[in-house]
């Protein structure tokens, strides 16, 4: 297999939690400026895989990994790599909206700058830009000083997206970003994803087949089948949904199990 020098790729990636082998031998390439949906039943290792992509996995006690994650051709688990630098360039949006409750809406957007020690010339412009890109500016632009906790769940999730965007990441990882949201908010987050993908690589875990079909260019199907989770197949989304190579993929996307 040739080594991709752009985008994000994994080679022979494994993950363990203590003695439990959670993920085995995943090799995949996420081309630049595309959206890839990770699909599969619960417990198949999708979220674990996602957290390996920006070195969040290692925070879990007794966890371990093997293999490589190549970001623009370089292994992010290399000995001389600063993981905080990786997490700055590969942003993450979590399943449950998690704005910082002690901060205002505006402070939340730029919270990452302080955390990652990034300087900016104009905070106000950046706040407006990120909130606009996250599709939230119209709703909160007039009350940036309100506490973040005063927002609805859907607004909080888009605030978290804006917060991740403020660091201008090249990749955005999203772990079921809509699972706690109502349909209207889900729709708005999906629109946001579509706009972002013009100049950003997005990897999104989702349990919602329609969502995967709507937002992603590529889909990757994971399945554990008792043992560690594996990548069954990855292809263009239309192919995964219309003519998958593996019968298990077909069964899953058509709702016959999972």
């Amino acid at each position, binding site marked *: 297999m040739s080594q991709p020098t752009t985008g994000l790729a994994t080679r022979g990636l494994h993950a363990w939690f203590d003695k439990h082998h959670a993920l085995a031998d995943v090799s995949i390439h996420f081309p630049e400026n595309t959206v890839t949906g990770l699909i599969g039943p619960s417990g198949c290792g999708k979220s674990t895989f996602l957290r390996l992509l920006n070195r969040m996995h290692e*925070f879990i006690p007794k966890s371990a990994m093997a293999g490589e994650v190549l970001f623009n051709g370089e292994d992010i688990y290399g000995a001389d790599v600063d993981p905080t630098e990786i*997490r700055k360039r590969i*942003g993450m949006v*979590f399943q449950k909206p998690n704005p910082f409750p002690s901060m205002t809406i505006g402070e939340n957007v730029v919270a990452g700058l*302080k*955390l990652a020690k990034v300087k900016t010339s104009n905070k106000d412009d950046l706040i407006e830009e990120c909130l606009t890109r996250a599709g939230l500016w119209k709703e909160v632009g007039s009350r940036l000083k309100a506490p973040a906790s005063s927002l609805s769940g859907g607004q909080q999730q888009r605030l978290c997206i804006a917060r991740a965007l403020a660091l201008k990441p090249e990749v955005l990882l999203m772990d079921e970003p809509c699972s706690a949201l109502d349909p209207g908010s889900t729709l708005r987050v999906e629109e946001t994803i579509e706009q972002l993908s013009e100049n950003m690589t997005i990897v999104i875990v989702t349990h919602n087949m329609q969502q995967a079909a709507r937002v992603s260019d590529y889909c990757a199907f994971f399945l554990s089948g008792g043992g560690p989770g594996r990548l069954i197949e990855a292809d263009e989304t239309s192919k995964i949904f219309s003519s998958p190579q593996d019968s298990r993929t077909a069964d899953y996307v058509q709702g016959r199990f999972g």
Partner: protein
Amino acid sequence: MEIIAPDKRKIAVRRGIVDKAFRGVVTAGSMISLIVLALIAAFLLYRGFEVFRDFGLKFFTSSKWDAGADDGSIAPSFGVAPMLVGSVVVATIAISIAVPFAVVMALFLCFYAPRFLRRPMTSVLDLVAAVPSVIYGIWGYAILMPHAKGWAETINHWLGWIWIFKVPVPIFERSPFIAGVLLAIMILPIVTSVAREVYSQAPQDQIDAAYGLGGTRWGAMRTVVLPFGKSGLVGGAMLGLGRALGETVAVYLVLNLVFKVNFQILASAGGSVASLIASRFGEAGPYELKALMAAGLVLFIITLIVNFIASSIVNRAGKSQR
């Protein structure tokens, strides 16, 4: 169309016998503790009333504590100003030393200590919190004071130009500073224990968010854990402050009780309401005893005020968290 509001229904609840009995038990339990508290206050007020009546505000502002002569040739005179000031000074020193150390220790225990060390270290901490204060007093007198004397001299040498660090007579033993350091060590375990408990509840999803934004471990502490634990820490500090204000024996052993208001913390002259009561109680005549009861009531009220302030801070901080 106009809506005609009906009469509001009264919501009836039928309670079973077990529920009723349990209600009775918990109500009685909480009432008893309140009643005991009220009785203590009433007793102190009753016994000290005469002194408050005789001296009025002078009881709080005067620095003289004189039981007078039995034959009446010298009139008794009682004032707790130096002791009141001393209590506050010593407790403030204790809190300002203990809280930063407690925060650092609690963060270490929660986020930095190796996993196998956390449990034993936490148990040791709780054990230390239970050591009787007289042990601290003896240890403070025999071991701590000779060292702390040197620290006080150093502070005086370099910061002596600041008024509170001045010393009129170069004696550095039994000063409010030393009593404060001893109390800081005494309350450190309890404050740390509370802080550790609070920090361990910090929401993991927010910590993840901080890491996910390229934050370092310290960044996550500062952004998530410390703001989250702020109100709990205040609660822990007030618990420590309560113990520091009320501490008697340990302070008595390492503090020179002097009936003169003194803010110069390195000087060998200080006060403490609790220690005053302990030191005078044994040989006090009936009238002085009443004065001591009055002093006790003052201490009791100060402690209540401190607790009240603490709980309102905790409530306010708690609201902004949600």
